[in-house]
C-alpha cells in the first residue's frame, strides 16, 4: 500500500459518508425516509454498502497491485498482513487486499445484476398472474411452486457441472432465472388487491389496454414489495455466488470473486488464516448490511408489516 492507495481509501470512506448523508438529506422530508433512518441499523448498513460500492468502482486507485499479479511466488506467498500487504498475500503470492477490491466488482456486480434479472421476471410474472387471473394465474403459480420446491443450489450445480467453462454473464442469467419465484408471489399478492382499486377501472375507462394497465398503472403501485424483496434478495444471491465459486463452479479462477478467494486460501487456514478470512468477512459484512438495509426498507415502505 502506498500513500496514494491510502488517500484513495480515505477518499472512498468520505465518499460513502457523503452518499449516506445526501440520501438522508433528500429523504428527510418524506415519512418513509424518516422511518427508514429511524431504524438503528439502516445508517451503518447503508454506509457499508456505499463504501464497498465506491471501493469497487475505484478499484484501480485503491488496489496497490493488479489482482492477477503473482508478486513473488518463492518468497512472498502467504505473507502475513503488513504495511506493504494490508491483508497479506495468498498462497500464490497475490495481494489479498487488491483481489478483495477487484473481487468486490465481481461479487457485488453479480449480486446486483442477477437480482435485476430475478426481480424483473418476478414482477412481470406476478403482475400478469395477479391481474389476469383466469387460467393464467393458476398456471403461472404452479410453475412458481415448482420453482420454489426446487433445491436451488443443487439445480445450479447440475447445470454448471454439465456446462463447462461457464461465461460470467450466463452465470448471472442462471442465478436470475432461478431466483424470481418468491418475488413473483409477493407481487401477485399485491396486485390481487390493487386490481380491485377504482383507479384501475378508471384507467380502463380511459381506453388503456391490458398491458398498459398492468405495467403502467398497477405495477408502480407494487414498488414497495419489489424493492424490499430485491434488497433482501441480493444478499442471498451473493451467498449463492460465493458458495458456487467456493466449490469451483461459479466464477472461474483467476478472476477474483470473494467465493473463490476463500477457496484459494482455505487449505492453508492453519498457517495463513488471512487469505480466506478477509474475503469471508467481506461477504458477511456486505450481506449483513444488505439485510439491515432491506429490513429498514421494509419497515419504511410497508408499514402494515411493522406490527407483525
Amino acid at each position, binding site marked *: 500500500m502506498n500513500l496514494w492507495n491510502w488517500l484513495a481509501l480515505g477518499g472512498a470512506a468520505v465518499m460513502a459518508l457523503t452518499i449516506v448523508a445526501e440520501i438522508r438529506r433528500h429523504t428527510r422530508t418524506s415519512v418513509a425516509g424518516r422511518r427508514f433512518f429511524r431504524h438503528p441499523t439502516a445508517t451503518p448498513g447503508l454506509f457499508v454498502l456505499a463504501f464497498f460500492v465506491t471501493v469497487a468502482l475505484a478499484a484501480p486507485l485503491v488496489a496497490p497491485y493488479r489482482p492477477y499479479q503473482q508478486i513473488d511466488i518463492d518468497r512472498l506467498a502467504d505473507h502475513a498482513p503488513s504495511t506493504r500487504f494490508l491483508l497479506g498475500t495468498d498462497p500464490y503470492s497475490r495481494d489479498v487486499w487488491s483481489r478483495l477490491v477487484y473481487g468486490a466488482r465481481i461479487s457485488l456486480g453479480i449480486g446486483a445484476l442477477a437480482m435485476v434479472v430475478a426481480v424483473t421476471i418476478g414482477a412481470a410474472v406476478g403482475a400478469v398472474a395477479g391481474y389476469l387471473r383466469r387460467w393464467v394465474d393458476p398456471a403461472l403459480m404452479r410453475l412458481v411452486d415448482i420453482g420454489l420446491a426446487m433445491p436451488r443450489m443443487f439445480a445450479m450445480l447440475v447445470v454448471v457441472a454439465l456446462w463447462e467453462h461457464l461465461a460470467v454473464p450466463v452465470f448471472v442469467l442462471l442465478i436470475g432465472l432461478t431466483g424470481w419465484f418468491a418475488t413473483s408471489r409477493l407481487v401477485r399478492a399485491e396486485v390481487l388487491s390493487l386490481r380491485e*382499486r*377504482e*383507479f384501475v*377501472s*378508471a*384507467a*380502463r*375507462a*380511459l*381506453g*388503456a*389496454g391490458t398491458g*398498459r394497465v398492468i405495467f403502467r*398503472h398497477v405495477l*408502480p*403501485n407494487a*414498488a414497495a414489495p419489489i424493492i424490499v424483496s430485491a434488497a433482501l434478495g441480493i444478499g442471498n444471491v451473493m451467498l449463492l455466488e460465493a458458495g458456487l465459486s467456493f466449490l469451483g463452479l461459479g466464477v472461474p479462477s483467476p478472476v477474483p470473486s470473494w467465493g473463490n478467494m476463500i477457496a484459494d486460501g482455505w487449505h492453508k487456514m492453519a498457517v495463513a488464516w488471512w487469505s480466506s478470512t478477509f474475503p469471508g468477512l467481506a461477504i458477511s459484512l456486505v450481506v449483513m448490511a444488505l439485510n439491515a438495509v432491506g429490513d429498514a426498507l421494509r419497515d419504511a415502505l410497508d408499514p402494515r408489516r411493522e406490527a407483525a
Partner: protein
Amino acid sequence: MTEPLLRVRDLQTYFVTEHGSGTARAVDGVSFEVQPGETLGIVGESGCGKTVTSLSILRLIPEPPGHIRPGSFIEFEGRNLLTLKPRELRAIRGNQIAMIFQEPMTSLNPVFTVGDQIAEAAIVHQRLSRRAARTRAIEMLRLVGIPDPEERVDHYPHQMSGGMRQRVMIAMALVCHPKLLIADEPTTALDVTIQAQILELLDRLQAELGMAVMLITHDLGVVAGSADRVVVMYAGQVVEQAPTPALFARPLHPYTEGLLASVPRLDAPPAREHGRLHGIPGQVPAATAWPDGCRFHPRCPYAWDRCRAEAPPLLDAGGGGDPGTHTVRCWLLTDPRRRTPHS
C-alpha cells in the same frame, strides 16, 4: 326527435354468485336513450343497477362473474358496443365515451402526478408527445377551475382536497372531448358546497363542449338541478322515465312518489308522522331473488292482487309530447282509482 347518441335496449347484466346461490340479475332489461347534448339523470337507491348499467356501456363489467346477456343491445352512434373488438372498444373508451367515478379518493392513481393522469387519455388516443400532453393537462386543469394549474400539474393526488380531486377526475375524462360523459355519483363523496360547485362545473363544461351527460345519482336534488330527462331505476329495471319537470310535477310510479316524498323540505312543514321524515318501508330485495309480479309490490302502499301476480310493462303515460315521453312501469296506470293508499 333526432337520432339518439346512445341507445340502450333490453340490457341484461347478470352476475353468477360464487356460492351457487343463483344468478344476480343486477340489470334486467333496461332500455333508454341519450340524445346528443342532453343530460340524462339516472336515479335509484343503492343496488338498483345504476352503476352496473354504466359499467356495462363501457364493457367494464368484470367477466367472470358478470356477463352481459345475448339479446342486450347498446348502440353508440349507430355501432353496437357489445360486438366491438377489444381494440375498437378501447378507441371509444376515454375518447368518445368517458366516465367519472364516485370516489375521487380512490379513482386517482396515488403514484402518478395529476398531470400525468390527465395526459394519459390524450397520450393513449391522440399519441401526443409528453410535452404536448403536459401543456394539454395544464389547459384542462385551468378549464376545470383549479388555481395555479402550472404548479398543480406536478402535484400528487394526496396533495389535493376531495373537491379538487373530483375536478381532476373531470379533467381526465374530458381531455379528449368525449361526446358522452358518464358521471357515476360524481358528488356523493363530497360535501354539499363542493357538490354544488362540481355540478355547476359539469353544467358549464357540457354547454362549452356540447357533450351529452349521463348523470347517475341517488340524489333527486342533483337531478332536479341539472338533468333534462330522468330515468328512475328500481331492482334492475327502469320504473319511470320522464322529462325532469314532468317527473317532479307528476310522479306516477309509487316508487318515484316515495322518493320525492322522502326528500326533506325546508319550505313545506312536515305533514306526516309527527314531523318525521318520510321513508319507503322495507328495503331493496336481493338481486338473486326479485319478487314475482311487480318488483316493487312488497313495498308499495297501493299493491293489489294483480301487482303480486303479473309484472307490469312500461306503459305510456301520455302527458303531452310524443308517445314514450313519459313511461311508467305500474299497473296503476290502467286503474287510476286505486291511487288511494289503504292503511
